[in-house]
């Protein structure tokens, strides 16, 4: 369908979302990603039976930890969709990109974040 989505989205292939480790999600932020999302099969349709259920749990755990650390939990998300749902993937990609721009650079990138906060019309501390 070649539906257009924001080029900020970069995809990493995993054998199954069940392989997505909390470590991987955190390392992505460490590397400089501003939002991370996991796109798995529809629940009940996992080729490996339940990998996507495990992934959802891990994403939920990271969200919870983020909230406790003072990071925005919206920076990480889990979605379930099937390979024929191109339009939905685009909608998700757009939503997550918008989120990234709204939330600004992740606090792992201190300099960038400072500059961004300073540039905000109504910068709120913390």
């Amino acid at each position, binding site marked *: 369908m070649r539906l257009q989505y924001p*080029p900020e989205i*970069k995809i*990493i292939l995993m*054998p*199954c979302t*069940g392989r997505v480790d909390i470590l*991987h999600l955190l*390392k992505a932020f460490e590397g400089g990603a501003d939002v991370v999302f996991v796109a798995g099969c529809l629940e009940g349709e996992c080729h*490996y*039976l339940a990998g996507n259920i495990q992934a959802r749990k891990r994403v939920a755990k990271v969200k919870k930890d983020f909230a406790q650390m003072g990071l925005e939990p919206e920076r990480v998300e889990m979605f379930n969709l099937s390979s024929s749902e191109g339009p939905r993937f685009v909608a998700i990609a757009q939503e997550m990109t918008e989120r990234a721009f709204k939330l600004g650079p992740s606090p792992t990138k201190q300099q960038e974040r400072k500059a961004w906060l300073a540039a905000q019309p109504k910068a709120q501390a913390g």
Partner: protein
Amino acid sequence: MVKLTINDQVAEVPEGATVLEAARKIGVRIPTLCYYEAIKPYGGCRLCLVEVTAGNRTFRTASCTYPVSEGIQVVTDSELVLKRRRMVIDLLWSKCPDVPVLAEIARELGLKEPSFIKGKDDCILCGLCTRMCAELQGPAAIGIVGRGAKRQVMTPFGEFSQACRTCGACQFVCPTGHIKDVGQISGKTPKPKFSEFNACLDTRGNIYRLYPQAMPSTPAIDRSSCIQALTGECRACEKSCPAEAIDYTQQDVRETLEVGAVVLASGFQTYDPTKYAAYHYSKFPGVVTSLEFERILSASGPFAGHLVRPSDHMEPKKIAWLQCVGSRDLNHCDNSYCSAVCCMYAIKQAVIAKEHCKDYTLDTAIFFMDMRTHGKDFEKYYWRAEQEHGVRFIRSRVHSIDPVPGSDGVSLRFLGEDGAVHTEDFDMVILSVGLESSPDALNLAKTLGVEVNQDTRFARSSPFTPVSTDKPGVYVCGVFQGPKDIPQSVMEASAAAAAAGELLAAARGTELKKPSLPPERDVSGEEPRIGVFACNCGINIGGVIKIPELVEYTKTLPNVVFADENLFTCSADTQGKILEVIEEHRLNRVMVASCSPRTHAPMFMETIQQAGLNPYLFEMANIRDQDSWVHMHEPEKALEKAKDLVRGAVARLRNLEPLHKMEFPVFKSALVIGGGVAGMEAARSLGDMGFQVNLVEATDKLGGNAWNLVVSSRGYNYRGYLEDLLQAVQNHPHIQLMFNSQVTETSGFVGNFRSTVKTPQGDQDLEHGVTIMATGGKAHQPEEYLYGQDDRVMLAFELDQAIAARDAKVTGAKQAVFIQCVGSREPARPYCSRLCCTHSVESAIELKRLNPDLDVFILYRDMRTYGDKELLYKEARELGVVFIRFDLEGKPQVAKAADGSLQVTVTDPILGMPVVLKPDLLTLASAVLPNPTEELGELFKVSRNAEGFFNEAHAKLRPVDFPSDGIFLAGLAHYPKPIDETIAQAKAAAGRAATFLAQDTVKVGGVVAEVQQDKCAVCLTCVRTCPFNVPVIDYQVDAAYIDPAKCQGCGVCVSECPAKAIQLKHYTDLQIIAQELALAAG
């Protein structure tokens, strides 16, 4: 070849090419309006203006017409060029201010508004339409007439053109959308090509893919309306295809194949409801077929999954389904059978349609006669649809439908169960159309000499050889065998393959070709030497992303020792080049930056194997599907992303390691558990294919439930079949029988199982490649309806035996009553036992034949005589059997009257009052239960559903496989089913098993999880997490062990392990994190 520079980049193109072609080849974008690859360049719009320096002369000219010559320098973006282009587009935009493509180009060149007086035109007189018509299509039906301001495109004298073929090529090529209606040129109505796959709800091109996931996914040209095929003109696609893949000389060829067997899987067509006058399918736009509705709901369908009424795109609020359109009907068609799938698909569509409507509650109603949800787990779905999703089920055959004035909606008039006539309006009505054999399928059958049943027009087969036709060596599966759903079709497909495999056992493997590969180079200890091949994919990638720049960037990445670009990296000559480069640069890792690994990785992995590299030392960056295609309008950002993707892939590749699979010989024998019909048929099939079979039976007798089958109104000789089967199995040279035996231990993996069978003669150890579970089932022993308290109350089997023995109970009876669903479709057992309706109907027919004066009543909830069994239901009614329906809330009451007679009381829904029956024979159609298999399930680590039936790997696609490789199931252990379906499933299990047994070796390992024993704390997390129950604790080393042969490679345990003691090979944390960090670093 001619060399020139464009914006300081060197381009090499063949002589005679134009500057524009050279620029496009190296990815330099020049805007054009009057240019089209297949049409001779015209230099009309002047937008493609560039600055050319040839010798000591510099001038500006149209790049589309200027031919290249050696050494010229071209600049496409100098200030002067851009200024002139701005003027050109400004004039055109001012003439046609509302044309989006002009606005887009103008804005790109920095204009905000047209500078001149705005015109009202939308034709820029680029001449593409007239040239397309004259040059490529031939008729020259339109031309440019007039001068100056009056210049315009028109037909001669402004009259309808006789020459115009209404082909629409002019409309297609017009860049501004000026030509809106080709009918204005020819005076005829253009006929679009409808998409067959989308049930003709939308249109398709003349060159098209059948559907997005079609295999093969190569587009095809529809020759019936291809100008080239019809007149020899056009050839536009040939000129547009950079891969030169179009070959007009291809013709249909007649090939002769020498085969030993033929499998007929010609499928079905849906009933055409235009013949059903009362339902006005062709007249009312609100009436659509279920197939059309399926496409409407589909994400890849004509409305991208948005639920709308096709006629006016209105979002429906109320939808009705009418069942049995073209099924169970002799008035409007000859389809007296039940199509067996429509009830279930209607429920599914209703539920999914409701899920589609997130903003409002959709009202759905299914009008049906009998709700036939007889498949595995279907009954539960039916209940959930009604109770959780609120789908309304209305038991009524709608007589006729009327339009709702002023809308595309329709009004249904129907007789409710309360006996009153109701009228209800719906926005849409879905006709649940039935399945029937197509004329083509019938013709093919005739050609092959295959007989069809006159009553159903499906292929004739015996219940004992369900996939064999009358013609020896010709097998049949799927709906052409009889109407059925996907799981049943998949089962029969495997069964037909098994049947052919039995016939052709001697020829198996004789035409296999084995590829030869050079020995693998040992690259351990070597510093990574990476070669990168970047692909232009014609212009698919190169047209958006500047590949030369990407290649230069790639060369700066660590360990990259070679990088180059190709027009098509997947072409055969590029494979040769890759081999040479690996050799020349001593590469030990290869990366391709191109398209999807899903389609192309296996091919490249094979290529590097031919150069002696391990196939896992390969990686792809998907810069087409994930980049150039989806960021088409942002070339700069797309290039940056391509660099990121390549950087990530290189980082991963540096960390990849060779993986080796271990090979084990396959034990060419099977263990079959259960000696009923399913087990015996599977054993016989495998034995006939030449494999050794050990058949383990828990009792002292083969045959199981089949001994109980003694009555058939269809003339089936069950006993004769069973005796023949016993004979064949007992005397089979390849089958070893073990009676009074149980499997007590098992270990190993597909191809290499070792099991222990406890026999009266002592324990016996077996080596086997596959296992088939055929543990069977049994009849439920009810505790209601006086069963066991009165000898006139019996189960179906007991009645059959009495009929066969001509027992006085039967011959002397005056009234016989059957009660259906005894123990089935109840909260305790929420499934339909599938076979009891047919069984009772057959018994009733037999009773009527024995004694036409006998009164026979069948008390039922839904009559589920699916498929051709509907004909039996019809026959029973014709013989005078009376059918009375009851609900779960109003079950019949059975009591013993004071005079000792049996008294059955049931409320007749038509009369609306209780009916009292006094039968001498009361038969209970009791549920089918699975035999207890807890221990066996645990031993083989295969799961069972809440009712105790084994769970197959996938309800639709893998109906005889277990999730663990090499273990299969058949018969009642899977779900209740009649004997013909049991035989088909048993053969299917044998067929699936043979796909493993036919191999000489089994390869184990690759992308699998591996435990680092010293890190393992034996916390059992992996044991609990693995969906396939693979990890076990090895107490000799005090660590978890994951059998590489059983591991499916999902990595769930790896990510869950708290000690990080498990790694998934090829997807280690090191590899994933290296890729992530490199990717995010951009």
